[in-house]
């Protein structure tokens, strides 16, 4: 029942048969997915399931960014890594897992992390960006790189037993991260996994849901979660969706007269803007 001329090989057809059978997805959405590319910034709690599900689903190219190595305290939630790979660079470890799951996917590793000097060069090569980082400094940088290059940004976060997800910079009117948070939160307002703890499967749920949004976005099906924030309260077992503002005309990134541009982004001092180093450092474990 499929047209004779399509771009999928026999192995693609067998592997993705359950997507091809799906009336709301089918051959053309799978072809778009197989031709699309996604950059995942952060191979931790959110990036682990997102990378596995996007590799499994058959995106054409997957880019994996990290700067850190796998630590034993990551393994309670970062299920793409293994005990044998403790000490290995996270992008390398994640790439190995993706390749073992689906060798049809091209996996690129970006080993130096994400910083103002390399941001545009990395983002330029992908259709969609997935923010799976752990600190506001990198989140502002990813946002600005996506805005100046016109890429949709599937963003999620999790701390404690709470999770949040939205798609920034998508379509005509959807806000960017700076539209929502023009002023950076103070460091003391940013609870982090390393200080506050996080229940392992909570970033897991949010990361899989990021993969769902990317599959919809690249496949061209369904309603993308833009101008809406999905909130997960794991203790209550409850999801809530709330309506967000549209673009702010005065936004310095996506507004009518943006002050952040392709030309000057590399020189922007993100650490000065947020007052925080771009890390989620581990606490001292001596108290334990």
């Amino acid at each position, binding site marked *: 029942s499929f047209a004779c001329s399509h771009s999928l090989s026999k192995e693609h057809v067998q592997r993705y048969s359950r997507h091809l059978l799906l009336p709301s997805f089918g051959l053309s959405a799978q072809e778009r997915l197989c031709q699309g590319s996604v950059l995942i910034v952060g191979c931790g*709690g959110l990036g682990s399931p997102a990378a596995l599900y996007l590799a499994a689903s058959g995106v054409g190219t997957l880019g994996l960014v990290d700067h850190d190595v796998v630590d034993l305290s990551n393994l309670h939630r970062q299920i793409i890594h293994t005990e044998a790979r403790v000490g290995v660079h996270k992008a390398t470890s994640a790439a190995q897992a993706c390749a073992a799951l689906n060798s049809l996917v091209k996996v690129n590793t970006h080993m130096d992390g994400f910083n103002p000097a390399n941001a545009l060069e990395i983002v330029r090569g992908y259709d969609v960006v997935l923010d799976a980082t752990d600190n*506001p400094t990198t*989140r502002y940088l990813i946002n600005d790189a996506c805005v100046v290059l016109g890429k949709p940004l599937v963003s999620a976060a*999790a701390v404690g037993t*709470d*999770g949040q997800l939205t798609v920034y910079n998508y379509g005509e009117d959807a806000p960017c991260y700076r539209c929502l948070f023009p002023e950076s939160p103070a460091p003391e*307002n940013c609870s982090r996994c390393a200080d506050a703890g996080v229940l392992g499967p909570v970033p897991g749920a949010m990361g899989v849901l990021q993969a769902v949004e990317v599959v919809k976005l690249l496949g061209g099906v369904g309603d993308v979660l833009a101008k809406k924030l999905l909130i997960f309260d794991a203790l*209550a077992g409850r999801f809530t969706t*709330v309506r*967000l503002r549209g673009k702010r005309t005065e936004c310095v990134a996506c507004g009518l007269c943006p002050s952040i541009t392709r030309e000057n982004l590399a020189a922007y001092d993100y650490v000065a803007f947020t007052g925080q180093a771009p890390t989620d450092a581990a606490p001292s474990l001596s108290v334990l």
Partner: protein
Amino acid sequence: MKVKLEFSGGMDLLFGNKKMHEVELAETNGKRWTVGRVIMWARENLLTERPELFMKGDSVRPGILVLVNDCDWELSGTLDCELQDGDTVTFISTLHGG
């Protein structure tokens, strides 16, 4: 007037570890209850920990999203938004971890 005040994303830690507060706001000489007034009222009456993490000037701290009936308060006038009986105001701390 009865309104619900909800604290999410860790904000509940500042408000007696309670996520949902159903409160009765008294009429005071015909002065309307705006979201701005409710923020001050919550600081006086509900906040139990570290007030410096809730407010900055006469508004909430950067990084806190405010919703009125599950809609971003930017869609209804922010501090000046007038509340009706039965409304819900939600304060969400934006998360950054992953």
